[in-house]
């Protein structure tokens, strides 16, 4: 019997070396999968907000009146940054714990990014946000500091009434 085998079998006999239970692996696997789905859903929602909020802020604007700096002012950068972090974590979880390593990582990054962006855009153009933004516990997500609407700037709250 080899020295290593002897040593390992003694460790098992003395219970210095114990197996982890099957439940541990099932639980860990489930936790990773739930975390992955939750992060992807949150990322899609953030992308949706990053599209919806500028869309709502600009309103039905005529193309010739559009200015890129208006859009840059109104884009919720913090949501985009959190979304990018979410995407990064998703890539890592997918690569580390699923079989996606079989494909080139750039393919996985491209496919997941496109799917997340498309899903986010679909949500932004659905009526989901209109339903969510009036719910008290979600209203905060839809509040934006729009520099164009500061004191003395923008069209003001009575604009629609004056029309």
């Amino acid at each position, binding site marked *: 019997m*080899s020295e*290593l*085998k002897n040593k390992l*079998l003694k460790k098992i006999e003395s219970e210095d070396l114990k*197996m982890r239970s*099957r439940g*541990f*692996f099932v639980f860990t696997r489930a936790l990773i999968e739930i975390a992955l789905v939750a992060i992807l859903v949150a990322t899609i929602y953030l992308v949706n907000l990053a599209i919806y909020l500028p869309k709502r802020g600009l309103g039905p604007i005529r193309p010739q009146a559009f200015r890129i700096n208006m859009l840059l002012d109104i884009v919720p950068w913090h949501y985009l940054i959190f979304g990018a972090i979410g995407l990064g974590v998703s890539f890592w979880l997918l690569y580390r714990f699923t079989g996606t390593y*079989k494909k*080139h990582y750039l393919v996985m990054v491209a496919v997941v990014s496109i799917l997340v962006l498309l899903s986010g855009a679909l949500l932004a153009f659905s009526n989901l946000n209109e339903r969510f933004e009036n719910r008290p516990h979600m209203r905060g997500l839809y509040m934006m500091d729009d520099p164009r609407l500061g004191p003395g700037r923008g069209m003001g709250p009575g604009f629609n009434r004056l029309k």
Partner: protein
Amino acid sequence: MSKEKETDEQLAVMLQKGNKDAFGQLIDRYEPALLRYTHRLLSDQDAAEDVTQETFLKSYRDIQGFDPNRKFSSWLYRIAHNQAIDAIRKRKGTVILEEAESIASEEDIHDDIQNRLDKKHLRTKLDTAIAKIPTKYRETVILRFYEEKEYDEIAEILHLPIGTVGTYISRAKAELRKQLTEINIEDYL
């Protein structure tokens, strides 16, 4: 069915059910191969023994996480790969080149003396050259040419796409060719 005829995966299932003798048989089957693999990867006998021991410890601890539908050897080599990479990171990527000669000392004693000397010389140079190439290329070369693993198994062990395994092997050959040019043995590759 005799114990010798049981597949690795069957032994793994037996171990999952609590049969500790199955673990002994798996050690018998894989200890020499893992020692050889880790030794070639780390170029350090002591580190190779430590990594092999850690690999078996971890495989026993995590055996319930092994899926019997997968290949046991790939699962075990994956653990060995992770342990070896940790060991390399701990010593900050330095490779003990002088150890390469001891790997080559296990020669075929049935060959004639001149042949043995030539082979030993070639093997020593080759091992030294392999020890000098980047870890990611070294691993693919060792698994393909020393451990005789198929591309799909190497891909599973290293968690790489099969195409990347092929690319790494080509690049490793180019690196080795560069290393070996000065002693005119690149034709062996």
